[in-house]
């Protein structure tokens, strides 16, 4: 196959490309330029997008012995990922930009371009596995390296995208193995630190970055009953479940810490309360996609597992779908789920589907009425 290896300049994508070559594919390395004004050097663990990363990717391609190109996706990235990120926060939601990038850049814009230019597949350094079921359908599964598993951020891939995806390092037991293999292959990125922050926020401070773009208007921090507890400098950037940075002078009556329960951008209020008030028992999303073959009879509730953040735990649940809605009933309540987050549904290790959470149902009876009004004002739907 003709394979386009997306090379970020990190160790995972370098080893993935090398393995694709060894598997006998005709591989071309490509680095995605996602910013017109890239920084010169990486600082610590901050994302990608620097010239140093591009040079690291090129050096890796040279060592592996494959052609290398840089393709400009900065326009698309700005529109589909950065602007989306800002507007999601603007409406009080908590987006996952890596997911958007996979959905709209790597496995959409890049894949489309690759297919048009004669390639058969995109190879990336994601920790996930593609397996085939008895009928020959492709399935996305968690990687063998459980701690590094990235199947969550790939939950947006459709059956068609899976056909053209290749994750050569998904069958590795650990990141250490990948680093050791990179070193053995003479790749200088073997010891390069992992990136885990949002790549387009170079300073790493999401709240400041958002304030620069959305402005910040001081407002009230209130409890569930609407009592004013303090002031915030701007509602954007608060995330449901957040505990730090609330700067409430007055302690709670019960002396327990308080968490952000909801961000109401319309009234510019941040609602806080005890940890237990964060508990939700149901997640509802209006848009969902199947990752591979859809589940039969999915309009009836079926047993599954759900994960709501990139490195979160999976929780047993029951799921059912209609044409334009997915309902996820959790067996045990979970804390701090914000609208905008993605719920990825698993059947065992297989990724089955995903939805963007639009609203949640509180697990706490005495909070349900408050939750309903908060949720309603934030999302416009309960």
């Amino acid at each position, binding site marked *: 196959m003709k394979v386009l290896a997306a090379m970020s300049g990190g160790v995972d994508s370098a080893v993935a490309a090398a393995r694709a070559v060894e598997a006998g594919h005709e591989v071309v390395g490509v680095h995605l330029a996602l910013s017109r004004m890239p920084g010169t050097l990486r600082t610590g663990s901050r994302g990608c997008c620097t010239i140093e990363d591009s040079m690291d990717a090129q050096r890796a391609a040279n060592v592996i012995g494959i052609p290398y*190109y840089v393709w400009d996706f900065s326009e698309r990235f700005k529109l589909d990922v950065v602007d989306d990120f800002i507007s999601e926060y603007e409406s009080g939601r908590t987006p996952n930009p890596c997911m958007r990038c996979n959905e709209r850049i790597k496995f959409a814009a890049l894949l489309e371009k690759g297919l048009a230019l004669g390639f058969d597949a995109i190879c990336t350094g994601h920790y996930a596995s593609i397996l085939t079921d008895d009928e020959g359908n492709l399935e996305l599964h968690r990687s063998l390296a459980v701690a590094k598993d990235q199947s969550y951020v790939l939950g947006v891939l459709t059956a068609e995208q899976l056909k053209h995806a290749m994750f050569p390092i998904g069958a590795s037991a650990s990141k250490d193995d990948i680093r050791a293999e990179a070193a053995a292959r003479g790749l200088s990125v073997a010891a390069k630190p992992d990136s885990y922050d949002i790549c387009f926020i170079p300073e790493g401070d999401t709240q400041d970055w958002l304030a620069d773009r959305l402005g910040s208007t001081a407002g009230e921090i209130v409890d569930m009953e609407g009592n004013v507890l303090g002031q915030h400098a701007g509602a954007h950037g608060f995330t449901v479940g957040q505990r730090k940075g609330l700067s409430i002078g007055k302690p709670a009556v019960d002396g327990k810490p308080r968490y952000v329960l909801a961000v109401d951008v319309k009234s510019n209020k941040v609602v806080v309360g005890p940890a237990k008030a964060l508990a939700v028992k149901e997640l509802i999303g209006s848009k969902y996609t199947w990752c591979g073959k859809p589940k039969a009879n999915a309009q009836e509730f079926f047993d599954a597992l759900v994960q709501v953040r990139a490195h979160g735990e999976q929780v047993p649940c029951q799921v059912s779908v209609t044409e334009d809605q997915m309902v996820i009933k959790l067996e045990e309540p979970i804390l701090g789920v914000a609208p905008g987050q993605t719920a990825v549904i698993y059947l065992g290790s297989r990724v089955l589907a995903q939805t963007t959470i639009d609203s949640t149902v509180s697990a706490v009876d005495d909070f349900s009425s408050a939750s309903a009004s908060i949720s309603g004002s934030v999302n416009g739907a309960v």
Partner: protein
Amino acid sequence: MSVYLDYAATSPLRPEVLDCYVEYLKTLGNPSSVHTAGQLVRRALEEAREELAKSVDCNRNEVIFTSGGTESNNLAIKGLFWQQRTLDPAKKIIISAGTEHHAVIDPIEWLEKHDAADIVWVPVDYDGNVDLNWLEVFLSSKGSEVALISLMWANNETGVITDIKKVTELADKYSIPVHSDAIAAFGHIETSFKDSGLAAMSISAHKVGGPIGVGALIVSRATKLVSLVHGGGQERGMRSGTMNAPGAKAFALAATNTIAELKAETQRLQELRDKLVEEVSKVTAVAKLTGQKAPRMPHNAHFVFEGCSGDSLLFLLDQQGIEVSTGSACQAGVNGPSHVLVAMGRSAAEAYGCLRVTLGTDSSEEDITAFISALPKAVEGALKAGIPQTGDSK
């Protein structure tokens, strides 16, 4: 076997230049040393200066060797601006054009940001012509506030030539020094420094069959500029640092031989280029030649491929062994939209669809044939891949 059609990016080292370069690399001596070894190398350096001066048509003392074109441009722009500001603090305006190379635009913008320079960009038309009538009108009202004018002799992407003589005549009325980035032009069209009226002119060795890492700024005897690099005071005090005699020698020889062949090569390359343009129009309907109503360099053919992204074309041609360019790539190797086309008032889509073919000493009919036979497949794929979509968030 690949076909190299990117002479504007860099040119192959001429064989006789390689021999000369290697010979002087083997020669021991610092040109500033007093002993015999030093004197021998100094002699070689000064021979090179004299030889290069003949190719440039300037006085030998006007040749300041540098590490290349970018350094020459920086030295000219910052050096002239600071010199002018010292003499008259009211002179804050730098005039240039948006179609210049980044090695001119970026130092100017740096001076705006760090040294209170005011930038005035001369309008450029659809074909890449710099509007000198506009310049004349502007100078008539603000001429006394202008510190310098920097306009390139020929554009490195589109090949469009600017009438530098006319520029210096306009500037002369207000005693404004004019710098010209002649890196793309030198060796491809006539560029007499003496006749140009320029205060400074940048040139580079590797564009004319010399080695990378050697350039020169030609600075007229009447012109003073502030040095960027301080040290031993070499090169008329304008460029300190041990002088690169082997590089200078190789540059001088490359320039001499290129200039000697200029007339014959101009005719040969222009014929080849015109054939290429004609053949392109036969095999694809989406390619549009840039600068049709502008004087252009004989070895350059620049196209906008409607509905294509330049980097797709580049990739698909490279896969077939054809080496061309989209224009100038930035440090990270990204082929974004061309700032030159944008400055010419073209749309983002046009600025994305650029392809530059540049010919030189080894270019032949076979190269053109190979390019033309590879092109349809590349255009087909590039059209399918489309241009970077704006506003579509599928």
